[in-house]
C-alpha cells in the first residue's frame, strides 16, 4: 500500500534500532533508571505490539502506554446510557464496532442487541445518517466516540443532517479532548515521564501548537508520530535525541499527514457544533476538567442527550480492576490482579481488554514481551494458557 510499505522496511528498522541503542547508551539518566517515554495514543500502542517493537528496544527504554484509547476510557455509566437509549423501541442505535463489547454495569451494547435492541454497527457516522434517511419513522442515534480525530466526522454529519432537514438523527456525544488529558497525566504525582510520542491523527486535526505547554511549562519533549513501525522507531529516536541534547521541543515526525496548523475545515466544523463540557468522567481516571465536548444549544435537536431522558448515573469501576493505574502507566497490564484471569478479551471486566487499541488487550493478544514474565508469573501463566 502506498505510503505504508515504505515505512515497514525491515532493514531500515534494524538501522534505527542500532541508532536508538547507541543514543540510549549515552544518556545520563539511563544509568540509574529507565527512560520513560509515553505513547499517548492507543493507535501507537497497537502498532508497538503488532510489530513487536517493545521487544526490539534496549532495556534502558521503558514505553509507558497512555490513555489514548477512546473506547477504553468510557465509563460504565455512559455505556448504561447507551443501552438505555438503544432499548427504546423507536431507536436504531448505531455505533463503531469497537464499542459493541464495552461492559456496562448490567450489559454491553452487544448484549442489549442479543436481548432485542436494534443496535447496528456502522463504519461511518454518514452511514447512520443514511439509515435515518431511509427510516423516517425511526430515531437513529449515532454513538459519537473518539478524540479530535473523529470529532470532525460527527460534527460534519450533524451539519449535513441540518442541511438536508433530517430530524430523526442525533448523536450521543462522548467525544473527548487530548490536551487536558495529557495535562492531567503530567500533573499526576505517581508518574515520571521523560518524553512523549504525540498522537498522529489527533494532531492532523488540531496541529502541533496546542502541545507547546508540554515543552514550555513541563520541559518535556514530544514528537508527533506516525503509526508505521519506522515512524514509531524514528520518533523514539527523535525523543532520545532531544533528551540527550537537553532540549524540550514539539517536533513533527509525521509531516506527511500532520500540517503544523492542523486542519481548518475540520476545526471549523467542530467549533460550530461542539463546545467544551465543564468536566467529563473517565473510566479509571475520574473526572478531568474540560476534557469532553457536548453539542451546542444551536444543534440541540441533534443531541441524543437532550432528545432522550438518559439515566446519567455514575457507576464506580469494578473494585478488582486497576484500569486507572494502567491508563496512567503506573502499572503494566500484567501487574493488574485480574489480568488474564477474571479479565480476558472474551470476558472483559475493564474496557482496556476490549479494544484492539487497549493496552491490556494488546499485551494479552501479542504477549511474549521480554519483560512480561518476571513481574507476575502467576498472571502470565494464566494468560498464556
Amino acid at each position: 500500500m502506498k505510503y505504508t510499505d515504505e515505512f515497514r522496511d525491515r532493514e531500515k528498522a534494524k538501522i534505527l534500532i542500532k541508532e536508538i541503542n547507541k543514543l540510549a547508551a549515552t544518556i545520563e539518566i539511563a544509568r540509574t533508571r529507565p527512560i520513560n517515554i509515553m505513547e499517548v495514543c492507543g493507535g501507537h500502542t497497537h502498532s508497538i505490539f503488532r510489530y513487536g517493537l517493545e521487544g526490539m528496544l534496549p532495556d534502558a527504554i521503558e514505553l509507558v502506554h497512555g490513555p489514548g484509547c477512546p473506547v477504553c476510557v468510557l465509563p460504565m455509566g455512559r455505556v448504561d446510557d447507551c443501552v438505555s437509549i438503544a432499548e427504546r423501541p423507536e431507536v436504531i442505535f448505531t455505533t463503531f464496532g469497537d464499542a459493541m463489547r464495552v461492559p456496562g454495569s448490567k450489559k454491553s451494547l452487544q448484549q442489549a442487541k442479543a436481548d432485542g435492541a436494534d443496535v447496528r454497527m456502522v463504519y461511518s457516522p454518514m452511514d447512520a445518517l443514511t439509515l435515518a434517511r431511509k427510516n423516517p419513522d425511526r430515531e437513529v442515534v449515532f454513538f459519537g466516540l473518539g478524540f479530535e480525530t473523529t470529532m470532525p466526522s460527527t460534527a460534519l454529519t450533524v451539519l449535513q443532517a441540518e442541511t438536508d432537514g433530517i430530524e430523526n438523527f442525533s448523536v450521543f456525544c462522548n467525544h473527548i479532548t487530548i490536551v487536558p488529558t495529557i495535562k492531567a497525566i503530567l500533573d499526576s504525582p505517581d508518574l515520571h515521564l521523560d518524553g512523549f510520542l504525540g498522537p498522529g491523527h489527533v494532531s492532523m486535526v488540531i496541529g502541533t501548537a496546542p502541545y507547546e505547554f508540554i515543552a514550555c511549562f513541563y520541559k518535556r519533549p514530544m514528537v508527533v508520530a506516525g503509526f508505521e513501525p519506522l515512524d514509531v522507531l524514528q520518533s523514539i529516536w527523535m525523543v532520545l535525541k532531544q533528551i540527550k541534547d537537553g532540549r524540550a521541543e514539539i517536533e513533527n515526525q509525521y509531516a506527511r499527514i500532520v500540517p503544523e496548523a492542523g486542519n481548518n475545515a475540520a476545526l471549523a466544523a467542530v467549533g460550530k457544533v461542539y463546545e467544551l463540557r465543564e468536566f467529563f468522567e473517565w473510566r479509571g481516571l475520574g473526572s478531568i476538567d474540560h476534557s469532553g465536548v457536548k453539542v451546542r444549544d444551536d444543534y440541540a435537536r441533534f443531541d441524543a442527550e437532550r432528545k432522550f431522558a438518559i439515566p446519567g448515573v455514575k457507576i464506580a469501576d469494578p473494585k478488582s480492576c486497576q484500569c486507572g493505574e494502567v491508563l496512567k502507566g503506573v502499572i503494566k497490564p500484567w501487574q493488574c490482579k485480574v489480568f488474564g484471569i477474571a479479565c480476558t478479551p472474551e470476558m472483559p471486566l475493564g474496557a482496556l481488554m476490549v479494544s484492539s487499541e487497549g493496552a491490556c488487550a494488546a499485551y494479552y493478544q501479542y504477549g511474549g514481551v521480554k519483560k512480561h514474565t518476571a513481574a507476575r508469573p502467576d498472571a502470565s501463566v494464566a494468560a498464556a494458557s
Partner: protein
Amino acid sequence: MCLGIPGRIVKIDDHQKKLATVDVSGVRRQVNIACIVNDTHLVDACVGDWVLVHVGFAMSRIDEHEAAETLKILTELGEAQAEMESMRLSAVH
C-alpha cells in the same frame, strides 16, 4: 477507528455535499471530502489525491514531498551507519 487508511480519490460524486469515491487497495467507497477542500484546493482538484480516510471522511491529503523527506532521513541514517562501519574496518588502529 483512530488508525485510518490511505486511499486515492478516483471521482467526485456530489460537488455540493463534497462526496467522492475513494479507492483503497481496490475497494471503493464513498467518502466525505469537506476536510481536504479549501480556497486553494477546490473539489475538482481532489481527483487523484492520496488521502488518509477515517470513518468515511478524507481527513488529510498525504504530502508526497514530506513523505519523501522522512524516508530520505531514514536512508541517510543507514548510509551514515554503513560509512562509519567501513571507516571502522579500514581504520589503522
